[in-house]
């Protein structure tokens, strides 16, 4: 196989569990059940962290957003995709489906992005409990009420730089 000449980059999924903050306190109140996992995820590869927020795709040093260090790190595997290809890919994504204004808290959020990128890089998806989160919230009546409100939320953890268009 050509693997000898191909550089392998390991891909990780950084999971930030926001539930220590508000979800644990508020979710029983608001949703009637405990949604203990409100997560923000990011992909870490090539020594950088990439995530999608209200401003678009951003990158930073791993653990470099204001969320600090991740609560969980999941090894997604390896990829042969080089950084420049990845950057091209991200740029394309950032111009199309992952523009800042496309952020939707429920349907098209950071976890959506992470899932897609993970598949691109490794062929694997991120753990399903993360991607199932929106539907879990939406399945409650309160979630339904909240939905139009939350749809307009853009979560953009500060501490990253936005990837727009062409790199360099």
């Amino acid at each position, binding site marked *: 196989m050509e693997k000898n000449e191909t*550089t392998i980059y390991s891909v990780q999924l950084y999971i930030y569990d926001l539930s220590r903050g508000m979800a644990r306190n508020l979710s029983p109140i608001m949703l009637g059940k405990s949604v203990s996992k409100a997560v923000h995820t990011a992909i870490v590869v090539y020594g950088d962290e990439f995530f999608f927020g209200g401003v678009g795709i951003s990158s930073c040093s791993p653990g470099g957003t204001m969320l600090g260090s991740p609560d969980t790190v999941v090894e997604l595997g*390896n990829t*042969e*995709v080089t950084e420049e290809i990845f950057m*091209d890919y991200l740029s394309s994504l950032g111009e199309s489906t992952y523009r800042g204004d496309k952020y939707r808290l429920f349907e098209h959020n950071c976890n959506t992005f992470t899932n897609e990128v993970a598949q691109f*890089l490794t062929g*694997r998806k991120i753990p399903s409990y993360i991607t199932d989160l929106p539907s879990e919230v939406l399945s409650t009546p309160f979630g339904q009420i909240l939905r139009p409100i*939350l749809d307009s939320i853009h979560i953009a953890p500060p501490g990253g*730089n936005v990837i727009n268009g062409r790199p360099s």
Partner: protein
Amino acid sequence: MAESSGTDPTVDSNVVENAAKDRTMIVVTVKTPKDKEEIAILEDSSVAQFKEEISKRFNAKLDQLVLIFAGKILKDGDTLNQHGIKDGLTVHLVIKTAPKATSGSTSQNSASSSGTPQANSSSSASSPVPNASTPPGTGPAIQPPNLLSGFGDLSSLSGMGMGSANFMELQQQMQRQLMSNPEMLSQIMDNPLVQNMMSNPDLMRQMIVTNPQMQQLMERNPEISHMLNNPELMRQTMELARNPAMMQEMMRNQDRALSNLESIPGGYNALRRMYTDIQEPMFSAAREQFGNNPFSALGGNLDSGVQPSRTENREPLPNPWGPPGTAPSESRGTGSSTTTSSNGGTAPSVSSLPNPLGINASGLGNGVFSSPGMQSLMQQISENPQLMQNMLSAPYMRSMMQSLAQNPDLASQMQNPEALSVMTNPRAMQALMQIQQGLQTLQTEAPGLMPSLAPGGIPGIPSTTGGSVAPEGPPPPTQGSNPSADVSPSQQQQQLMQQMLQMFAGGVTTTQAVTPEVRFQQQLDQLSAMGFLNREANLQALIATGGDINAAIERLLGSQPS
């Protein structure tokens, strides 16, 4: 690898041959960042062939295509089978923008597939390139300066001061920041999330209701639940909460208005007590909810963001009048006590205060407007025109309006759009304040003049230059000073003035001129056309005659004002 050699134009023939040889076509989804296509290809095609198809479909050059599957870059020399690409699977495609950028990966391609004389002239063409560029292994290491120089800037990490790993800590830090920086709360309030949440009354109500402390509170004070169940009220409060500045003003207004309303015999004392009972527990409930970080530390700016209703953070409200004889009154909260106490003395002080308007307020209710609290309110209004509208729409003001309704004159005047426009005109308000002050001074200094400050004479006062009653210039020359210069502005001002004064007077005077000046505008114009250039006198005459031009003319001719 027979098929790997067929990437020239012979591909098609190869495909045909292959098809004839009983190979199956598979449909593979090719996904780019922007879109995806389904491409049918033979299942044992090579990647190169696949790319051919793709380049046709996507209109991209072969060397721009990078196929990725399961994290692997598909090299031209590989087969789809090799990578396990089967029917229905998705392959990712990246269309490179610059062929040069293929250096990292295609160098490997060229290295590995150099043996295959494919029409990958791209790869052979690019093979010199990778030599020139960085070797693939160190690609990512060296590329970063170019690609990532704009990214991954760590400096912002510590910039926020939120370098903590623990989100709990983060929250506390946020709160601490909140305490020390009231601005932040307003920023939070500006956050669309919060605003949206606030704009949904059901949501807010539910949030409040489900707070255990609130539930306790509600048990103790059924009024709270009543309040919460009033959607109008909730909406009101939420609008307030949404706009911190408005909230702040509103709080002050409420304080003042309520303290004024105390003076209305009976009723609002009870109201006040009730709110005291409610406000304090709610405040402490809000405090507890936020982890015992009392918002009192907020420097008196804003109240809790999530508890919109009654939690008030009061700092002592300035009372410009510092009235004497303060009757001790219940404190309605922390800081408002000063105002409360000072305004609690409204009742006795109304009589002791020189009635600035020369008119005996017939009832305390009517004297509300002349109370110091009201005046300070007016002062604040003059600084913020928005305030007036907010004030008028506030739920508390509704009660006040009810009291006004008892005095229809007052109410009508209050609702008079003219009057409202006065109130919203800061300069006018200031002028009115000054007039009031001036009149007060006047009263103290020349009590003999008071009788002459009859309703009809009041409009004459501000319009000083006409010199009808002309005391020593009670109003600093905001309005009365240039009556002749700008006719219409002063006219309007006079109108507004008069209305305000009449309102101040508690409407005791008359229903003389609900909108005297507006009503008389035509007459005034006529009078001036006739040659009566003294607008103030005209106005007075008109008012005195109730708009009758002829009578007014007679008056004017009879009185011969200068």
